[in-house]
């Protein structure tokens, strides 16, 4: 071990320029892989965050909507029927739409998800500052932490929502009464208003004030026994007409584009890892090819194959770890200076998985060169064999 380490370390140190350059290549691959992972996490969270954090176990859809939130419409009667099913603790109507917050002159309007919820019911997120929604139709809103960060809005501030009504743009003034933690939906930050107010503000093909008891898109269902999700799902579908019910994970996996987006990013990540594998493998293969006469000489003087193989492997690990370390540090540094609106989330689990993958592909890529060095004939030292 010590002789193998001695050989690998001396070679790295005496050729540090070359090995550092290669470590930087690995660092760039690390940077790329970590960013793709962060983008996947960021975009994924941007799509699923609100649903994932819901204080409910099931989401109920209109059965013909095929789990598309935008296509689903649930009326008051259906919600009441769901509420009446044995085992349901509470039901909250939720409506989703996209509008924009008008910002100060000179700044672009901020696209947001406008989410209508029933005050005090499942679907309304907990506040981290201020107070929860209380009145069914007041001009009050909860904003998520991202909006507070980007716009500077605070509890007590008023802001304008721009929403197309028929062919016209209408503006609605709302007052911030509370701030929630980040609750993104549809890759946009969210504001939460009472469902009646939501029905009034949401973009409509024809102008109108909104219904007194509006239809919503879906309903969040809180169960009396949160562990009996599957049984309750079946019971709801059996007892309430024209609905479909799924757990939260199924719900966000069926949000528009979520699965396709995650598959695309995972494919990109796999290709980046494959490229890393080929680059690392190629570098050490070329390096070994250049050293064939020297390896032959080492074997001729009696150096065991194990020392030569271990020395190559240690070298690959050192260069790889150094590259990954540099890449991770640079990524961490960059993550600190990125503006909050960019959907990059450096989540510890996915970052660790990405780093672990690169640490594994390094030695894997180098195995070909280790095999090559083991096959070098000592006779090469005498100009014989090949």
């Amino acid at each position, binding site marked *: 071990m010590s*002789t193998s380490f*001695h050989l690998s370390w001396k070679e790295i140190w005496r050729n540090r320029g070359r090995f550092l350059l290669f470590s930087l290549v690995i660092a760039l691959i690390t940077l790329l892989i970590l960013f793709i992972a962060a983008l996947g996490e960021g975009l994924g969270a941007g799509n699923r965050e609100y649903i994932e954090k819901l204080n409910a176990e099931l989401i109920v859809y209109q059965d013909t909507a095929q789990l598309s939130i935008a296509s689903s419409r649930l009326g008051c009667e259906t919600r009441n029927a769901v509420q009446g099913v044995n085992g349901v603790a509470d039901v909250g109507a939720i409506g989703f739409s996209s509008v924009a917050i008008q910002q100060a002159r000179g700044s672009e309007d901020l696209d947001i998800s406008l989410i209508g919820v029933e005050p005090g019911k499942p679907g309304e997120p907990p506040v981290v500052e201020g107070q929860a929604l209380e009145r069914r139709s007041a001009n009050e809103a909860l904003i998520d932490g991202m909006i507070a960060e980007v716009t500077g809005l605070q509890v007590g501030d008023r802001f304008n929502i721009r929403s197309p009504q028929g062919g016209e743009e209408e503006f609605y003034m709302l007052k911030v009464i509370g701030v929630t933690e980040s609750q993104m939906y549809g890759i946009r930050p969210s504001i939460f208003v009472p469902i009646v107010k939501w029905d009034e503000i949401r973009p409509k093909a024809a102008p109108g004030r909104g219904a007194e008891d509006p239809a919503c898109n879906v309903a969040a269902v809180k169960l009396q026994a949160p562990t009996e999700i599957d049984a309750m799902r079946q019971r709801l579908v059996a007892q309430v007409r024209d609905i479909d019910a799924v757990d939260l994970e199924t719900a966000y996996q069926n949000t528009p584009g979520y699965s396709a987006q995650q598959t695309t990013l995972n494919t990109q990540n796999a290709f980046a890892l494959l490229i890393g594998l080929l680059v690392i493998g190629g570098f050490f293969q070329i390096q070994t090819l250049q050293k064939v006469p020297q390896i032959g*000489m080492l074997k001729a*003087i009696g150096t*065991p194959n194990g020392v030569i193989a271990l020395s190559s492997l240690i070298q690959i690990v050192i260069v790889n770890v150094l590259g990954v370390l540099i890449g991770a540090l640079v990524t961490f540094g960059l993550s600190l200076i990125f503006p909050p609106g960019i959907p990059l989330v450096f989540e510890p689990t996915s970052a660790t998985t990405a780093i672990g993958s690169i640490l594994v592909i390094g030695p894997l890529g180098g195995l070909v060169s280790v095999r090559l060095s083991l096959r070098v004939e000592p*006779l090469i030292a005498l100009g014989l064999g090949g």
Partner: protein
Amino acid sequence: MIALEARSVDKTYGSGTNQVKAIDDVSFGVEKGEFVALVGPSGSGKTTMLAMLAGLLEPTSGSVLIEGEDLGKMGEAQRSRFRRRRIGFTFQANNLVSYLTALENVELMLRLTGQYNAANRKRARRLLEMLGLEERMVALPRELSGGQQQRVAIARSLINNPAVVLADEPTASLDTERAYQVVETMAHLVHEQGRAGIIVTHDLRMVEYTDRIVHLLDGRLERIVSPDDDLSCLADPASCQMISDDVLGADGEKVAATVS
């Protein structure tokens, strides 16, 4: 006392009509403290013979013994271990590990044999000093001249106190003056330390430092002569058919039988 012995060694490559006999029934011995030149024209089988003497190549038939141990009876790993402990090697080129200094190259043998300690490291320094490299110990191979590199290789080949020291054309890439220095140094250390030394060379000027000359021709042992003999027969084999009996080693009878 015989340190190295080749007994009726044959080496054949290929099979059937493509069969080539690279070495044909060669026998000779080298005593401790004896420095022998293996000479012959290109293609005469010198390097193949050296490879078999080092256990890098297995004879088709016959055997090679070093200090009485038959290399053919050892497994690959055992031969590798035997080489690093009992055989010192100097090559024509690519002799040194490019990223180790002169001293580290010599010490590498100590590391490989588990003898890397203060006393032996001191010995490595002394050996390099003895070879006139006291100022070049921390130089990398690329910073050394060809002659200096060969002297480092000689030091490396001797540091483990091997029974046998083998050198394959160590002077091939050197100018005459450095070539003489290298061979003279090798001869001196082989004699002084009581090793059995074999140098493969095609340069007949180098044989003056050796004790005996084993002449190979077309894979056969053509003759064994003394450097003091008339060496013109080595350059022109047809002019000299006799074996000089007075230079036969301990295995002289066998050699005479082989060559006659």
